[in-house]
C-alpha cells in the first residue's frame, strides 16, 4: 500500500506537531511526504494528479484553522481536483482511501455537542467526507491530535505509533489489524537486530495470544449461532 500525505501548514517549520509527525515516518517506505508550498501561485496540476493516482491512501494533514483547513489546502483542492479527474470522465480516485490528520490547540472535550466548540471534528470535517463519497473513495475515520504541546511523553509515544498505523496499516481500525501490524514491526526489528532471540520470544508469545483469541472468537461465534437457532 502506498500512502501520500498532503501536508498543508502555513508555518510548517515552526510546527512542533508537524516535525514530530515527520520524524515518526523517517524509516517508513511507501510513504510520500508532500508539502504544499505557501508561495506557489501556479500549481503543476498534471503532476499533482499523477501523484494522487500513484498512491492508494491519500491523507490531508493540516492544523484546524477556523474549523477548516488552511487556505493553501483549499486552493490546492480547487486547482487539482478537477471535475473530470474526480467524478467526470476520469474517476481517477475511485477505490482509493481518503484520511484526514488534523491538529488543534483546543482540548478534546470541547469538540462535542454542548462543549466549547459545540461540534465534533467528524461534523466539522464533513466536506472531506462528501468529497470522498463523490470521488468513490473510502473515507477513513479522521486522526485527530489535540493540544500536542501538553501531551506527556508516554502519550507522545502512543501518538507516534498510532500515527504510523494511520499512515501504513491497511487495517488500523480493528484490533486484529493492529495485532498483525505490530507483529510485523517486531519481526522486522528482530531481523535487523544483532541479538534477535529476545525479540523473537516476545513475538512468539504475542502471536500465540492472537491465535488463542482467534480461536475463542470462533468458538463464541459457534455458540452464538447455536443459541440463535
Amino acid at each position, binding site marked *: 500500500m502506498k500512502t501520500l500525505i498532503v501536508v498543508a501548514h502555513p508555518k510548517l517549520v515552526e510546527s512542533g506537531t508537524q516535525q514530530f509527525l515527520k520524524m*515518526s515516518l*523517517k*524509516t517508513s517506505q511507501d510513504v510520500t511526504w508532500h508539502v504544499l508550498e505557501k508561495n506557489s501561485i501556479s500549481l503543476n496540476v498534471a503532476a499533482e494528479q499523477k501523484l494522487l493516482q500513484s498512491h492508494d491512501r491519500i491523507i490531508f494533514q493540516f492544523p484546524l484553522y477556523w474549523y477548516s483547513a488552511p487556505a493553501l489546502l483549499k486552493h490546492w483542492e480547487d486547482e487539482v481536483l478537477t471535475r473530470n479527474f474526480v467524478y467526470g470522465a476520469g474517476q481517477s480516485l475511485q477505490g482509493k482511501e481518503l484520511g484526514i490528520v488534523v491538529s488543534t490547540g483546543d482540548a478534546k472535550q470541547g469538540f462535542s455537542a454542548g462543549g466549547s466548540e459545540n461540534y465534533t471534528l467528524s461534523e466539522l470535517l464533513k466536506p472531506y467526507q462528501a468529497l470522498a463519497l463523490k470521488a468513490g473513495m473510502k473515507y477513513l475515520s479522521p486522526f485527530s491530535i489535540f493540544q500536542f504541546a501538553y501531551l506527556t511523553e*508516554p502519550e*507522545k*509515544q*502512543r501518538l*507516534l*505509533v498510532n500515527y504510523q498505523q494511520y499512515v501504513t496499516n491497511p487495517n488500523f481500525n480493528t*484490533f486484529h489489524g*493492529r*495485532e498483525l501490524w*505490530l507483529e510485523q*514491526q*517486531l519481526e522486522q*526489528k528482530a531481523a535487523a537486530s544483532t541479538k534477535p532471540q*529476545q525479540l523473537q*520470544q*516476545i513475538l512468539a*508469545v*504475542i502471536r500465540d*495470544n*492472537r491465535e*488463542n*483469541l482467534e480461536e*475463542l*472468537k470462533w*468458538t*463464541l461465534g459457534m*455458540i*452464538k449461532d447455536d*443459541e440463535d437457532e
Partner: protein
Amino acid sequence: MDTNQWVKQQLTTLATTSKHYEDRALYVALLDLVTEQQKRLVQSQGEVDGRTWNPSKW
C-alpha cells in the same frame, strides 16, 4: 512466571533502555497490546464458559 508477565517485563525494560525514540515508542505500543490481549483472553474465556453453562438448553 506466566509467559505474558515475562513478556511485559521484557517490554518494560526495552521501552526505557532502547537507544532510539521510535523503538521505545514501539515497545510501549507492544506493552499496551499484550495488556489488551490478556484482558480479551480472560473476557472471551469467561464468555465461552458463561454461554456454555446455559441451563435453558438443558
